[in-house]
């Protein structure tokens, strides 16, 4: 009995497979064309920059989520990291602390939260969903206690440098927020897709036990993933507080579900349905374009949420069909 070679599927993808894989990209293009046709303002550079600015924070948070999901977990407390960073930074700024220090402190707060999560998940062994759910509850409570019920903290006369982060325009037109998001995107792309550390994190996320036996430092990388997540979400919080001149408690919650959605839309791009940086970008862009476009053509604002849900459904179904073909 001889052994023959394998496969077939991985060599020449069928049209159906191509459709599935590039479905999200295709959808994106279709959506853009759709809105471009329906609204003349859509394709104006000002509007496009608007979109970029609007998705900046979501992109940053989604990249945080991508890392954690790649590592095999999930982080329901990304919104809290975002809020904590804003809380710390704004409170320090209010106390007239030198703004770069406030910024760093904010980021550190997020990283610390990530580290706490990692202790619960990696050291004690609580499942990521429940551990970060607990952190979420506690974080929300801390914010409420701190602000005595949920009042935002406003900053009058914010330090110029800090304000620039949220409201500045490079060369007079390019939103600084978008630039930061772009830089973060680049960093994550390089880290996850191009370094050996990203490779290891991915392996651990796929099969922890196999990675362990391969000699990878599993706990080290898992901890790293959560700390990175907290740190990155914190960056989102810095941007948010800078652009709003304030710390608004519990604003992070808005980004949680959207980021999960974006990451999973992104998995459809990958032939193995794994979370990936570029896919997440696509997911975020889809959401952003949707929201913007619907606005422009005057459709009821609330359809935005329905559209988001529909998008995620489509992504999931594509993914399911993808898996079936493979099985």
């Amino acid at each position, binding site marked *: 009995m001889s052994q023959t*070679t394998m496969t077939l599927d991985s060599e020449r993808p069928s049209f159906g497979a191509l459709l599935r894989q590039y479905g999200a990209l295709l959808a994106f293009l279709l959506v853009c064309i759709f809105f471009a046709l329906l609204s003349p303002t859509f394709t104006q550079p000002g509007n496009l920059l608007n979109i970029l600015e609007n998705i900046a924070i979501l992109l940053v948070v989604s990249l945080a989520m991508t890392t954690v999901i790649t590592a095999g977990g999930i982080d329901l407390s990304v919104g809290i990291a975002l809020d904590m960073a804003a809380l710390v930074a704004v409170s320090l700024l209010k106390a007239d602390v030198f703004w770069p220090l406030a910024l760093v402190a904010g980021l550190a707060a997020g990283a610390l939260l990530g580290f706490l999560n990692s202790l619960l998940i990696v050291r004690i062994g609580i499942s990521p969903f429940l551990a970060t759910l607990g952190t979420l509850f506690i974080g929300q409570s801390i914010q409420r206690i701190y602000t005595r019920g949920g009042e935002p903290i406003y900053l009058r006369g914010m330090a110029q440098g800090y304000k620039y982060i949220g409201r500045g325009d490079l060369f007079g037109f390019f939103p600084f927020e978008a630039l930061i998001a772009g830089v973060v995107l680049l960093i994550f792309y390089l880290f996850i897709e191009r370094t050996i550390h990203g490779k290891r994190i991915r392996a651990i996320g796929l099969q922890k036990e196999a990675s362990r036996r391969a000699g990878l430092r599993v706990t080290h990388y898992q901890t790293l993933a959560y700390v990175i997540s907290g740190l990155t979400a914190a960056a989102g919080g810095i941007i948010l507080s800078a652009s709003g001149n304030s710390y608004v408690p519990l604003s992070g919650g808005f980004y949680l579900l959207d980021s999960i959605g974006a990451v999973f839309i992104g998995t459809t791009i990958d032939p193995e349905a794994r979370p990936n940086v570029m896919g997440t970008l696509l997911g975020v862009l889809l959401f952003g374009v949707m929201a913007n476009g619907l606005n422009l053509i005057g459709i009821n604002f609330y359809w935005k949420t329905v559209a988001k849900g529909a998008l995620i459904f489509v992504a999931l179904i594509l993914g399911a069909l993808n898996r079936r073909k493979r099985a």
Partner: protein
Amino acid sequence: MSEQTKNILEMQAIVKDFPGVRALDHASFTVRAGEVHGLVGENGAGKSTLIKILAGVYQPDEGAITIGEETFRSLTPHMVEQLGIQFIHQERYLVPHFTIAESIFLGQEKCYRGLPLIDHRSMTRAAEAYLAETLGVVLKGRTLIRDLSVAEAQIVQIAKALMANPKMLVFDEPTAPLARREVDILFDVIHRLKAQGITIVYISHYLQEIAEICDRVTVLRNGVDVGTLVTRETTTEEIVGLMVGRTLEEMFPPREPQIGPAILEIERLGDNERFFDISFTLHQGEVLGITGLIGSGREALIDTLYGLDARETGDIRYHGQPFKRLNPVRAVKSGLALVPRDRRKHGLIVDFAVNDNINLSSLNEVARSGFLVRKQARTRSAEMVKSLDIRTPSVETIVRYLSGGNQQKVVVGRWLNSEAEIYLLDEPTVGIDVGAKVEIYQLVNRLVSRGAGVILVSTEIPELLGMTDRILVMYRGRIIKEFETRSATADSILAWSTGGQSTLEGK
């Protein structure tokens, strides 16, 4: 042969093909009513496929199945159940948080008269009575499945199967997770069942047990049945001979061991739970076999050697240097390599490419300031693929799509890539068909000829006899016997595996 012994099952000339592989090649299998009939064969011989066809999970490409008086071209699980055949699988298909009573009566729960509400109390009593009467086992009906021992859970599984009043029970490797004492209980149950007129098909690769419990045994090799023997009238050597098909010299590649100095010294190693006081030495260029039934501690030993579990006592010395606290990271750094028994779960990242898997443990070698140098990585893996003759369309192929044998080569390739010196091979040829097995054996020889030391854990007697220089037999957590392979026989290995008494001499 009496006129009255009818055949309860006849599988005739079954052919089953999978992409690239013919799993069954006109295999036949006949079982007489009321007997206990064993089915043996090496990994990849087709036992599992044959039984899956009987269970209706696969459909044969050719051949027919006669059950009782009716003949079928193919079966479905539902049909098979209606025809009175029940299967006791290796996996425990039980709900962990159900009670014994709930598990046994699942699907046919006892209710109060007139109401659709479950009468838990009477169900519990009924379950306990049922266990006592049909199996002679006493268990409390309220006990949760997850609180049972593996053997007790198996009893519950059997009880559940019996609820359907089957004419035939098929046991698939039932003793794999059992301790010796529990095996005795299982055999008692099987004798009882036989006395009640139920036919038993018993699949196992523990030839010792086949000899003890079966009336007849059918041997499969290369997808075909090569003989049906009366166990009383045969010997282990004969069975092994049929399983392997050639003399051992023909099956296994020639070896010329050149044994060097000691590289790994184990002294009084133990975890005080599953294995105790283990001492042995591994030399360069040597293949050391370790065998034993499950419960012998060999699995725990390997896991501890690799640092997956902590040890309580003893020393591990590598090139004379002691290992203080061991974990897989340190083990790998020091040159150990593990090829785990569950290849797809623990051996490979199945969704990664060949390339990524081969480089996984040595990523530092293909990186520059943390960045992966793709070209270098690809070159290294291409070399390995060539060197090991791994059949794959490209190094970027996802490993999931490779056959078992080639997957295993990828695992070995990963370790060769990181220049490991000590290989722990845990049942390396499970689930690999015969052709690929030979290649794995050749690989092992290459490893040792380059100076590596290999520990081969296996329960396949032919493999142990053909590939090792020495064999350590473990029993109940200790090394009970050490053989020079030259002077070992299948019979003696088996005998020592079960504690030292040979049972093939008369029944």
